[in-house]
């Protein structure tokens, strides 16, 4: 056995010291990483979305598209006004609705409804959508995001709670243009 492979007392303690610190770091890393990722893991448990009321059916005239606001179901005490959201409610007829997110399907700017030309237009990068939310022109690759809705006891209710984004599986983005929203 050569001298280099011999473990000295000091060398052993140093390696032990590194090992012990590594173990402690690994133990402490678990809660720290879970803390950092809490907003992601909570989302996986589907704790963010809930059914929120928008208003009585009568508040939305048939054939028109109106802006409605709602309070996000998942709120922290310091959120203030930022926990409020807006959406476009299109009442086709009777209990048939389409509820669109205000966020443009391109990069999320707030789209505005122009009843005269029957278009939603985005102020940022020039996206435009038809009254049924389908893409009309501009950079968006898809139609507006739709919230699932239901009418219960004469109240329009939507399933909301997450910022709709154009990524692959955003919660409000599951309803692709053209497909009727589920009730």
């Amino acid at each position, binding site marked *: 056995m050569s001298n280099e492979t011999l473990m000295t007392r000091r060398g052993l303690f140093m390696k032990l010291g590194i090992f012990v610190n590594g173990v402690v770091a690994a133990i402490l890393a678990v809660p720290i990483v879970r803390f950092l*990722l809490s*907003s*992601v893991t*909570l*989302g996986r448990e589907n704790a*963010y*979305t809930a059914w929120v009321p928008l208003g009585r059916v009568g508040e939305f005239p048939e054939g028109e598209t109106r*802006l409605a*606001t709602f309070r*996000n179901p*998942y*709120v*922290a*005490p*310091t*959120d*203030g*006004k*930022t*926990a*409020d*959201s*807006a959406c476009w409610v299109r009442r086709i007829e009777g209990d048939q609705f389409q509820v669109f997110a*205000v*966020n443009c399907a*391109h*990069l*999320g*700017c*707030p*789209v*505005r409804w*122009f009843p*005269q*030309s*029957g*278009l939603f*237009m*985005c*102020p*940022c*990068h*020039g996206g*435009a959508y*038809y*009254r049924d939310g389908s893409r*009309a*022109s*501009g*950079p*968006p*690759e898809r139609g507006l995001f739709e919230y699932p809705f239901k009418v219960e006891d004469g109240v329009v209710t939507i399933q909301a709670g*997450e*910022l709709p*984004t*154009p*990524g*692959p*599986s*955003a919660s409000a983005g599951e309803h692709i243009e053209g497909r009727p929203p589920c009730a």
Partner: protein
Amino acid sequence: MRVIARIAEWFDHRLQLAAPIRDAAEHPVPRNTASWWYVFGSAALIVFCLQLVTGILLAMVYVPSADEAWSSLQTLNHAVVFGWFVRALHGWGSNFMIAIVLIHMVQVFLFGAFKYPRELTWILGVFLLLMTLAMAFTGQVMRFDQDAYWGLGIGASIASRVPLAGPAIVKLMLGGPIIAGATLSRFFTLHVFVVPGTLIALVCLHVLMVLNLGINEWPMPGRLVRRATYEREYHELTKTDGAPFFPYAIWKDMFFAAFILLAVGACAWYFGPFGPTGRPDPTIIQTVPKPDYFFLWLYAVLSLLPPSLETPALLIGPVIAIAALLLLPFLSGEGEKSWKRRPIAVVTVMLIAIMLGTFTHLAGYAPWSPHMNAWSGDPVPERLLVGTTALQRQGALVFQAKQCRNCHALGDTGGERGPRLDGVAVRLTQDQLIRQVIQGGGNMPAYGKNLSPAETTALVAFLETLHPAGQAPAREAARDVVLGAGVEKRASAKP
């Protein structure tokens, strides 16, 4: 005086800092580097120090809470003595810092200072640039107004496009399901702790390497960098034609630093602080969010990219750009330093500058965006209605009421999204006009479902009158033949 010297000596006996500081200050630099071209690095450091000081001052009043941040900015602007000025210094300091860092980078690139043995100095510089941009973006979020709120939404939308991990990244970035209190808190953490801490560490290493490796000598055309000989040559140069950095070269840095601080102060005094714009209330959608100046080019790129190219460009573009910057010293670590003999380097810089400049200029008036308030404000000019029929006038009404001018200009007012319509009748025949209005196309929405047949007929009748005097409107030759008009004309033309 003797007392002061003795106190200083007492401290230095314990600190042992005087000798290394003197060595650093008096280290010999090539005489020709004492140039006004070599002042941008130190200027960036000075502005960074200004940002640290003003940032700390602002943090004494600012409240990083989604509910109160906006109000605390109002307090800073209106209630705290010189609060507006400190905010303005910080905001203008940020713009100056990006500008100076970019100029510094271009100078280093054109002077070949990234070549052996200063590769790592350049790489750290690239990270310093990215950190500076990160400070600018997170700083825009600190100004928690409508632009900040929707800017975060744009950031989240870009992040969401990452394959597989997109939604998780969005929630990690926002600290929850929506842009709210947690979002501001974590951007505050980034802006105040994480990024500045990294910046300070990297700046120290960057400056340390400049001291240890020496300032890049003035590049002479034909004097090539070779790994084997460069360090010896540089050492000889500082010996034969060198001078101590202090005081030989530093006075220019000091003058320029003072000038830059004065310029920041003057801009802050004259132009005042940036915003905040409207309250960050997501239910107020009457807003036109725009990024800060140094991100305007990106805003233009995002508007002009074809939809199919956008996600790849957003996700792959930055990776390629950063990789190219990081690999530069390894791809071209030796050889010619002078920009006079590096035409591709010069052309690259010019090309990038022109591209960024053009996109920034375009973003200033955003021709791709419909004019959101044009419909009621811009009546059809009267001169276009002189001598028109009732049907054509009805068409002019349709034109105005259906907001065509959100996108199309007529008589110098209206949007620039679509083509000007002053001479549209010369370009398109009646059939083509009808088709374009009903089916859209070429980035124009289809209005078939929005216009009754009568409205379409009237609108097209009006559009057909839009041709310059003395220039006939376009007409389809085939139609004349079918209707026999052409035959008659030809017949009558015969002698």
